[in-house]
């Protein structure tokens, strides 16, 4: 059976190092399978977070050869196995142990965002009526599995550590799904500009590239939100139009 070397990040926030493990690999294996084999045979204390093994729970997010990936969806036959495969935790979040990071910052960000605020119900039974095409417009954003790979790859968070001023691509997708919702009535543009730091995004499209659900984050969520912010705060003609129309 073929063998491959995995260079795995071991340690915590205070002390850590790469450790090489050689293990047997076979056809159809993904990186998570190899990590599990190493855990079972060579490093019983290796910490890795995982759950569904089907790319739907977003638990096993990490970095494989420097690329943010779901470990369970990264096939070994897509990697060059003639050299060590580097497996690291996500760099944008604090490390707990080995491949496990503390992603709780994301949930705190979500709590601060203005929630879905529907208009009064259309019918007496408390329901609304929507056209399918209007809801299709934002359906793509609902595919997000909150793996936070987009947050990890974003250089504003991973490189510049602006967690206090920038909410990251995941929550721009969330904001877009609310702002563009056909029955939502809330206006989040001031928060997006001032507190959420949408202006920090410089459109590298790295978030779109790493999304395992293939959500077109930059083109369909971030840029449309940036344009709405321009409407509200930077476009003098739009501002004049609003003054006269109000």
């Amino acid at each position, binding site marked *: 059976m073929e063998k491959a070397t995995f*260079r795995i*990040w071991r340690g915590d926030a205070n002390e*850590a*190092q*790469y*450790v*090489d493990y050689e293990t047997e690999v076979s056809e159809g294996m993904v990186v998570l399978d190899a990590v599990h084999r190493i855990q079972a045979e060579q490093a019983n204390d290796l910490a890795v977070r995982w759950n569904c093994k089907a790319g739907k729970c977003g638990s096993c997010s990490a*970095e494989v*050869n*420097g*690329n*943010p990936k779901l470990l369970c969806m990264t096939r070994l036959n897509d990697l*060059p196995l003639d*050299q060590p495969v*580097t497996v*690291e*935790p996500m*760099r944008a979040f604090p*490390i707990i142990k080995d491949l496990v990071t503390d992603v709780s910052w994301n949930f705190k960000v979500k709590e601060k965002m203005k929630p879905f605020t529907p208009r009064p119900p259309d019918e007496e039974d408390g329901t609304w009526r929507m*056209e399918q*095409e*209007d809801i299709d*417009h934002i359906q793509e954003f609902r595919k997000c599995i909150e793996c936070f790979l987009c947050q990890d*790859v974003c*250089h*504003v968070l*991973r*490189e*510049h550590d*602006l967690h206090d001023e920038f909410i990251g691509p995941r929550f721009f997708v969330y904001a877009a799904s609310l*702002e*563009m*919702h*056909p029955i*939502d009535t809330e206006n989040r543009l001031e928060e997006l500009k001032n507190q959420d*730091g949408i*202006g*920090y*995004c*410089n*459109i*590298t*499209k*790295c978030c779109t*590239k*790493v999304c395992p659900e293939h959500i077109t984050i*930059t*083109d369909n969520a971030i*840029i*449309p939100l*940036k*344009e*709405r912010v*321009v*409407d509200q705060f*930077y*476009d003098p003609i739009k501002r004049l139009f609003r003054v006269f129309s109000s």
Partner: protein
Amino acid sequence: MQQPELTLTEHRPFQTQRKDTWWVQPMAVFLGLGLFIVYATFRVFEGNHFIHGPYLTPFYSPLLFIPKHFPELFGPESDTVRHALNHSVFRSTMPSWIPGIITPAVLILWAPLGFRFTCYYYRGAYYKAFWADPPSCTVSEPRKGYRGEHSFPLVVQNIHRYFLYVAIVIVGILAYDVWKALWFDVNGETKFGIGIGTIILAGNVVLLGGYTFGCHSLRHLVGGVVDLLSKAPIRRNMYNCISCLNQRHMLWAWMSLCWVGLSDFYVRTIAVTGWQDYITF
């Protein structure tokens, strides 16, 4: 085997664990845009060889005035001056108070260049290629501070939609230039024909149109601003068409950039050499 290495939070310029050739794309963008900037700067300040017969290079269109030296250089009754005056918006030479370094291209090229400079695609591309901000995804940057487009100077990028308005007008003018490039002087008569130059200039309009009408700002202005597109069928159809072009915005951006350079190079070449291109009558 244990291998001590960098900590995860330590960033060294261009440090990455990526094993692919991540530098190829930013390098290609750097070379492509750099080459275009050098060539365009040369052509803008050259102030000559921008018209041949009915062909006007897109770098000098719309031609507001013809250069002061044209009547003296070619003769006031020459074909070149007559064609240039025909293309000129004000049908006159450059006013004497305008300094000589200001060519007709300087007066207009700020608009298409501004449109590209503030374009969402190009922004992402040149931030990587020219500023290494970041050099590529998950590759460390050679600086610590970062303001992005959150504050001055890059907050000015939000002007993009105003450049879009001008760019749409320019695409219309370039289409009119193609119409003019269908009429040739033959033995004192004006005849309809299609030359190689006509085809090149028409291709330029198609590619620039694909790029301009696939713009993210236009997409927003026609439909993205509305949550209930089902109640605005005209907007919905326009939004769908623009979205279709927008999906290949990068491709349109590069094809149109290369073609506009090629169009200028072709017109300059036949203007300098006096070659007669193939024309069907």
